[in-house]
């Protein structure tokens, strides 16, 4: 019996990879086939049609620039926060304020930000007409600007919390406080010392989350539709528009564009990897020269505080604006507050709410739970059987995060239909698992592997079985990253739109499918109500991931967050 259980555990990585590979491969095949005209007239006509689209060059450029800029800025701000702010009260406040933002749906952040910076938005309203003299909104291009600046801002606001949470889960394994202290006693500035002593250990653990952020930023659809340029939009938005074309003839062009998008993402990842090497060389050079960078802090600290405050304010005030819209009656320009208030929207939303919330939470918890068990089984098997994950295996795991969703889900839907598997919560849960598992694995693997194995050796020397070491030492010590991984899984599941819609056949409706359907109407009042509610579920998960370990470990100083 014990032997068989061990055998099962040993197979866990293979089983998990199959769970990832089969659906993605089936979906991709269902996408590649139409791109090459299979099933109709085989040939390259879809690619020719794509090349004929006049906006192609601009759309490709936009995808690359906004994706790389948003990822670079998000990472930079995250690292600055981690390097410069810990130790003060500000850090705690930033954490408490930023973490819930991870749970806010992208569309809600985008709509909130849009209401803030639009020429008829809250900022201009607050200054009009007394300061600006405007009684009609100025004709300024602050939203949907051709360079994609508004889109980059929205993406940064949404990705900084994700990278920060991923880093926080990994940070305890890097021995950051002692290393920083040591560097400072040697006369290094705080930022420089942190970059030399902590960054290399930390970045190794958050590299894959960064790749996921890059891939996501390049392919985000909802956010780019609300904040991004429109003439032309980003490539991902254009793919979604072609997918939605009633002529159905555009499916081939959409499939060809999806393959191009995939290539772009891979190219951007290669570029990012080159950037990593350049930064590494620069850091090594600076360290070898003995550069202390002591004066750098005086410049960087205010910059970090200002940027963090800006992100917090933009999202926080934007969401507050949406919340206010959800109870607003008439609210015309240039009034800063609604003329009348009404609970109409909430009354209308109330009956559907309980039903959708229950299903969303049930799906999310089940999927995150299964993903967590699979991830733990893989990691434990890897350690006990001294398996080392091949880079090919890792690539498979990250496929669902790198392949644009619009590209492989329609193919997957046809496959699920053929097998008669669609339209049930179980099928939707299976589809969610494809996207949830990588994130759970991503957020858990680095801290799990970085666990000091000597503790396990001591345990074994004292006679503990591998199972006992797992349950009594490793799992409790890694409670924080484990709960964080679960919360990330829950949030990812709650946020899934396309998989729920396509695999659920419209019969499995969650808060997110409702919210996105409603936000296609652009009604700030309804979107405000749904966004707030949609935020509550994952926020509860993250709150638990922060609060539970703090409670359990309140008497263990070594287990506190950095």
């Amino acid at each position, binding site marked *: 019996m014990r032997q068989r259980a061990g055998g099962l555990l040993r197979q866990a990585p293979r089983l998990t990879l199959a769970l990832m590979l089969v659906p993605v491969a089936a979906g991709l095949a269902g996408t590649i086939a139409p791109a090459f005209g299979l099933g109709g007239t085989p040939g390259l006509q879809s690619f020719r049609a794509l090349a004929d689209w006049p*906006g192609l060059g601009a759309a490709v450029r936009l995808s690359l620039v906004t994706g790389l800029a948003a990822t670079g800025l998000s990472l930079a701000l995250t690292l600055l926060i981690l390097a410069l702010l810990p130790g003060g009260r500000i850090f705690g406040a930033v954490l408490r304020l930023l973490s819930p933002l991870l749970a806010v749906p992208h569309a809600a952040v985008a709509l909130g930000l849009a209401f803030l910076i639009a020429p008829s938005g809250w900022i201009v309203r607050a200054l009009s007409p007394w300061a600006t003299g405007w009684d009609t909104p100025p004709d300024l291009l602050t939203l949907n600007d051709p360079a994609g600046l508004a889109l980059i801002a929205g993406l940064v606001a949404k990705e900084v919390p994700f990278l920060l949470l991923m880093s926080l889960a990994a940070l305890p394994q890097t021995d950051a406080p002692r290393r920083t202290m040591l560097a400072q006693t040697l006369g290094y500035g705080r930022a420089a010392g942190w970059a030399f002593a902590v960054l290399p250990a930390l970045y190794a653990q958050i590299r894959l989350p960064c790749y996921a952020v890059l891939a996501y930023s390049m392919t985000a659809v909802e956010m780019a539709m609300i904040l991004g340029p*429109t003439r032309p939009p980003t490539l991902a938005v254009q793919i979604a528009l072609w997918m939605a074309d*009633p*002529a159905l003839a555009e499916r081939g062009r959409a499939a060809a564009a999806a393959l191009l998008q995939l290539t772009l993402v891979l190219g951007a990842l290669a570029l990012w990897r080159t950037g990593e090497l350049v930064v590494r060389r620069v850091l090594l050079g600076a360290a070898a020269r003995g550069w202390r960078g002591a004066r750098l802090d005086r410049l960087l600290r205010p910059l970090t505080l200002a940027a963090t405050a800006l992100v917090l304010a933009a999202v926080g005030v934007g969401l507050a604006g949406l919340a206010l819209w959800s109870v607003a*009656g008439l609210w015309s*320009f240039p009034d800063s507050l609604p003329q009348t208030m*009404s609970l109409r929207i909430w009354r209308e*939303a109330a009956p559907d709410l309980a039903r959708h919330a229950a299903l969303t939470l049930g799906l999310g918890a089940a999927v995150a739970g299964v993903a967590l068990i699979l991830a733990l089984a893989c990691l434990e098997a890897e350690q006990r059987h001294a398996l080392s994950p091949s880079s090919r295996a890792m690539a498979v795991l990250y496929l669902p995060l790198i392949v644009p969703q619009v590209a492989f889900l329609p193919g997957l839907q*046809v496959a699920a239909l053929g097998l008669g598997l669609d339209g049930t919560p179980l099928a939707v849960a299976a589809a969610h698992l494809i996207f949830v598992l990588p994130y759970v694995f991503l957020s858990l693997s680095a801290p799990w592997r970085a666990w000091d194995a000597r503790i396990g050796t001591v345990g074994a020397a004292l006679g503990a079985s591998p199972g006992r070491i797992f349950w009594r030492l490793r799992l409790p010590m890694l409670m924080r990253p484990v709960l964080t991984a679960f919360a990330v899984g829950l949030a990812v599941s709650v946020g899934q739109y396309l998989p729920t819609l396509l695999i659920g056949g419209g019969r499995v409706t969650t808060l997110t499918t409702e919210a996105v359907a409603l936000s*296609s109407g652009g009604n700030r009042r309804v979107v405000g109500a749904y966004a707030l509610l949609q935020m509550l579920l994952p926020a509860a998960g993250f709150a638990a991931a922060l609060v539970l370990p703090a409670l359990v470990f309140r008497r263990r100083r070594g287990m506190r967050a950095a």
Partner: protein
Amino acid sequence: MFGRIMGTALACLAALAPAAGAEEAWDRVLAEAEGQTVYWHAWGGDSKINAFIAWVGEEAQARHGVRLEQVKLADTTDAVARVLAEKQAGRTTGGAVDLIWINGENFAAMKAQGLLSGPFAESLPNWRYVDVAGKPATVTDFTEPTEGLESPWAMAQLVFEHDSARLPSPPRTLAGLLDWIEANPGRFTFPQPPDYLGTTFLKQVLHGVIEDPAQLQRPVDPATYEAATAPLWDWLDRAEPHLWREGRAYPANEPAMGQLFADGEIAISFAFNPGRASAAIAAGELAETVRTFTLEGGTIGNASFVAIPFNAAHAAGARVIANLLLDPAVQARAQDPAVLGFQTVLDLDRLPDEDRARFEALDLGVATLAPEDLGPALLEPHASWMERIAEDWVRRYGTAP
């Protein structure tokens, strides 16, 4: 005497027989439908429409024991793609979609690919009230004959909206609108084509400036297309630099443009629903001084339909819903601006008195034009025009130079 009575009775019977047959057939549909759950795939972006559909569901449950479940779509094509995917996967029965809210190119696409069941519309008991003669759009969907494959449930017509407090007398002709746009830069825009409403605006302009509007009822003739549409591009070339954001950005769709209008960013808006402004005023979303107007010579109008996919799992229930949507009481509720403000597809003259009274009792709302002031509803051009001009717009204006 006896013979005459007998003869009359026989004539009556003969007249009744087909009707009785139809009645029996309908009873069979009702019996089959009872207890079914109908999944109606309908755009879910408007909470008022969603509430109306929920109310129809309560009626269906109470009257016929049919449960109605709205599948809220962000885009109707999702449902079309779904049925197509089911066909590709070989699922010819038990499909997920029972009923689709549809019209125009989605209908043309489904009809062309054999994705619809029917004909069913003309055998619905309430079909006799439909104003086929007065509202030809109820049987001609973008010049595509419906052939009973879809059943109408609401009429829509393009109307323009303005705030009478800020703009007391809006332009009533296309030439006047162009002059106004040039004189008031940044105060007019349209949803970015190929968005449905944005393309409808292009069609409206095309209808007004084209030399012979009759050719719009035929498919595009590639030989004369360039010359026929030249006046449209001239009009747009003159307007574009003076549009909202100098034409460098466009709202995504009707609700996004509605929000710009509510925010005061643009001074003239338009919608495909003559009752939208009144309904928005009633909901406290627009100022009470907003009014609607149409252009001299008429504006484009069309009908919304429901269709049943070829593999619908609950086709009988779907027919019951389609019939219920034509019920005078349901139509009157849909026309109530406090509910939807959609125009009815029925011919009021054919209704029983009590049903007609329901419509006459409606307060159409402060901003809604009376039917006689709405002006003629122009038939939609052939769908090929929509495709070509949307495509050309994207080529000419859709990407930054």
